[in-house]
């Protein structure tokens, strides 16, 4: 339960800003997949194959709950073409929460390294490329 709340917050902390829920979905899927490959896989979110790659209803709802609990800040941003997209960032309360639970969560350093690796490798991808990549795993 704690991991379920902490993982999206850790991703937001590392990314500074997560542009759209789809990015959340795919980046955390890639993270879970890499943990699995390296035998460090505790599946935190259950994913199902969907039209745009793996999708977790549990994660979608968790993000909403984190926004509702004011641990994540949901704001709007504009694309170059003038469309509005929703972005997520860590709220000060989210930062406090992470500091409090950091010792208790099961995400050990090796898994945090994987999360950093996913952020480094994939955060710069265009959304469509990220979706294609997540689908290919």
């Amino acid at each position, binding site marked *: 339960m704690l991991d379920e709340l902490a993982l999206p917050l850790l991703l937001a902390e590392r990314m500074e800003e997560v542009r*759209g829920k789809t990015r959340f979905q795919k980046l955390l899927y890639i993270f879970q997949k890499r943990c699995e490959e390296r035998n460090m896989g505790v599946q935190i979110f259950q994913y199902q194959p969907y039209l745009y790659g793996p999708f977790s*209803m549990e994660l979608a709802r968790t993000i909403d709950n984190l926004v509702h609990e004011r641990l994540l800040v949901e704001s709007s941003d504009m694309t170059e073409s003038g469309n509005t*997209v929703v972005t997520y960032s860590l709220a000060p309360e989210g930062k406090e929460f992470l500091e409090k639970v950091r010792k208790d969560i099961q995400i050990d350093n090796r898994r945090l390294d994987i999360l950093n690796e996913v952020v480094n490798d994939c955060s710069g991808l265009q959304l469509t490329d990220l979706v294609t990549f997540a689908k290919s795993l």
Partner: protein
Amino acid sequence: MDEDGRQDPITQFIDTMRSQRILNDTELEIYDFGLRQTILTSSDVAKHFNIRPSTASNRLKHLTKQGYLEESPRDGASKRSGKGHAFKYRAVHPKLALRSFISGRMSLEAAVQKIIEPLEITAESASYEGDMWLARAQTLAISEGIRKIDSAQRSIYISGRDCSWLKDPDVKEAITKAAKRKVAVKVAASQLDRGLRSTIKTTGASLVNCPIIGPNFCVIDKSVLLIPYKTSGLNEPYELLLTTHDYLVQGFVKYFEGLPSLIGPK
């Protein structure tokens, strides 16, 4: 409400049902009455709401058919109506009465979660530059306007006669948040009333009275133009026109930046 201003749970529940438009006001009043009574009859309802017994009876039957009340079968073999044989009703527990509604809402929520992905992919790839979009419903007009204000990174130019649309508390909050994150919010209005003038000042926006009655618009980051307007009477709701059409947007930016009293020498 109690001393601390807390609403009683039944009123709160009925208000939520009202806001979700689950039943109409008359039906809700009867259901509320039913939840507070053990047994209802049409004469109780007629008396309580000061309506005719036949009307009360029809409303109770209607609510029974919809699953919010249940009726007690009459005693005796004869089912004919008559004096002394009033139908008895009682309110169905909300969990049961709303079961299909709640499961419908859950499926709707799941469907909304799933539709986010294709919408985000479209938003990041498709270009609608040049198109003009009209949000006709006032709630949509306000939320679209707020979303755009929330997305501002550098500047928000607001022009208008009295800028009365800024009175909306959510719009005011969005403007305040923008000013706090160092977005340059500038308001040029020719006929601001005193109340709105102080409201705008509290948001952190720069404010200068405009000598001429200017057009009503808002430009976000010199790239998105929002035009709130009323289609007819003063009491009509606002609609909102949105566009990123560069030529059009730049025309409004030029007008705004040309207001010497606001911007000062370039």
